[in-house]
């Protein structure tokens, strides 16, 4: 139910808010990067070039100590020398410990984050919204049962529950062929995208309850509205009323929540990958975990850069969420989502 009033509000709010523009710009850049990853990435993100490992990003030179041993007059002598490592213009963000191009890894990491974020949110919404609407509309026993299940579900932190489920169920992944590579447009890139399917299912199962709560609240307040009573009096059955009258009027807060949830699930996915509970190695969280081992030896960029990528994406999506919330429904409370 996108009325012209809604579009007018969106435009008005967008014109007035610099942050909304920033958010949209960030999200557009990240989505385009993720979709066209094979063209944006200069290298295969999984290709290891051990002779080019630990190169710093452009603009940063690093000095490291290299020790080498050599035989001098029958004795082993250890020589320590300071070596300056200069960046290679071919690797804008430098390389990781195995000589993989960091920029390409960041580009491909966007795919994992966005796909898990969006699919996880859709799954959570497709469980939570119908359950919430039914419970709020019918009230009574269904509603009581739902609220108890929601209470139990909320008692477990998302991350703890997700870690437990993935740790116990395994880390299944599905290889989805990359259409650009199949079409021969980007032959040197990885042939397929690894979709961590367990992660998607688990984040959906863990976060559905937020959608159920919001949908229930909306249904509760809408069921008493005149037009709902009127269509009931005209003999419409409950499911038709829910679909035709309750859902369209409840959709605004659900969309706002959905936006915030994409951001929350991206953070959750990165946490899971960081802890090693994911099915893919092309993920920002995974790269941060790898880079953590290099922090004390001076290769700061391996852990820093993927984290900045997470931060910028989540900032972008959160700003988009703020914009939608302010434009669509000024009455919605600010926060309400799990991270």
């Amino acid at each position, binding site marked *: 139910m996108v009325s012209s009033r809604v579009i007018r509000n969106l435009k008005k709010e967008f014109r007035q808010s610099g*942050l909304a523009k920033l958010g949209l710009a960030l999200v557009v850049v990240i989505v385009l990067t993720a979709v066209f990853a094979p063209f944006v990435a200069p290298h295969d993100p999984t290709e290891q070039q051990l002779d080019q490992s630990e190169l710093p990003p452009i603009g940063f030179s690093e000095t490291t100590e290299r020790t080498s041993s050599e035989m001098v007059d029958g004795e082993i002598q250890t020589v320590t020398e300071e070596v300056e490592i200069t960046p290679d213009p071919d690797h804008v963000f430098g390389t990781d410990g195995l000589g993989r191009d960091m920029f390409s890894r960041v580009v491909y990491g966007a795919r994992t984050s966005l796909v898990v974020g969006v699919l996880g949110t859709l799954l959570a919404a497709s469980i939570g919204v119908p359950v919430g609407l039914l419970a709020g509309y019918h009230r009574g026993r269904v509603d009581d049962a739902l609220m*108890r*299940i929601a*209470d*139990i579900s*909320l*008692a*477990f*932190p*998302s*991350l*703890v529950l997700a*870690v*437990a489920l993935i*740790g*116990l*169920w*395994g880390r299944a992944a599905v290889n989805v062929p990359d259409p650009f590579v199949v079409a021969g447009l980007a032959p040197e890139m990885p042939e397929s995208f690894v979709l961590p399917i367990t992660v998607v299912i688990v984040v959906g199962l863990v976060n559905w309850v937020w959608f159920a709560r919001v949908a229930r609240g909306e249904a509760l307040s809408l069921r008493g509205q005149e037009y709902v009573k009127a269509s009931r009096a005209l003999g419409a059955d409950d499911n038709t009323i829910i679909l035709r009258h309750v859902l369209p009027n409840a959709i605004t807060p659900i969309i706002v929540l959905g936006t915030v949830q994409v*951001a929350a699930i991206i*953070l959750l996915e*990165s*946490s899971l990958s*960081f*802890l090693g509970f994911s099915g893919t190695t092309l993920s920002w*969280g995974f790269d*941060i975990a790898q*880079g*953590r081992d290099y*922090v*004390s030896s*001076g290769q*700061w960029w391996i*852990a*820093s850069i*993927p*984290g900045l990528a*997470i*931060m910028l994406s*989540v*900032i972008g999506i*959160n*700003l988009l969420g703020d914009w939608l919330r302010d434009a669509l429904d000024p009455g919605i*409370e*600010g*926060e*309400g989502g*799990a*991270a």
Partner: protein
Amino acid sequence: MSFGRFALKRSLQGIGVVWGVVTVVFALRFVTPGSPINAVAPLDASQETRQAIAAELGLDQPLYVQYGQYVFDLLQGDMGRSYIRGQEVTTLVFERLPATVELALAASVVAIVLAIPLGVISATRRNEPVDYGATLLSLGGISTPNFWLGIMLILIFAVEFNVFNTSGRGVDVGDVALSVINAEPFAGTLLTWLAYITLPAIALGTYFMALITRLTRSGMLDELSKGYVQAARAKGLPRTLIRYKHALRNTLIPVITVLGLQLGTLIGGAVITEAVFSWPGLGTLVIESINQRDWPALQGSLIVIGTSFVLVNILVDVVYAYLDPEVVND
């Protein structure tokens, strides 16, 4: 409904939820592929050995007997014995719990002490530079993964400047308190404690600082536009009194509720912060138990985490009802 009845009703509901938590945790084992015997038995164990282990662990009993036994033992504070560590799970969990609580509390203190003034200033100086600064800071805070923030803090403060410790717990806060009580020189213990807890507390607390700043700012803006504030102003009451005594008080009530609900995020965040800083808390135990399929230890930790969440939220609701009696009649 009277306040007492409300508190009672809420507590009874809480017991129901805790029972649900226990049941879900128990059921987890039966929706997981692979037998728990695998965690204990050697790979080449014979069928007889496996059966003997099953009998010893009570795994050969029918499901309802195992469940009944588990709940019965739990009511007496017995959560079984860890498969891997051989320790009583109750001992194990309550050994780890204080470290996690300490970390979570330290993070909350960091968050609240910074966020509330920031939110208030941001709201009272709307659209001034300080407001933009606070808005950006809180936006960054809710968007930054805490484990990454932890690593960046280690990078800056521990690797570059060599202040603060990055691994382990040092002394526990009880030791610091003990030195103070015994009138011993406590500066040394206090500094050690701070050296270990500061970075993890900031890493974990930043998200909440950002969240509370945002909530306080929007709540204050809302309150300041209300009629009673204008009336108070018209009466000539000092601004500070209106802001801090009236508006802030009304703002904090919903903030507390959201914080109660976000306690899960705090504990979840603690799990990963513990992993970054090798903090010996419940989170580390959860992850180790999952990887080792140490069912009793995993179940025990999850039950304690879930129950703490339920208890804190009952407390929040009861305090809320006490502060705002209208809730009772909801």
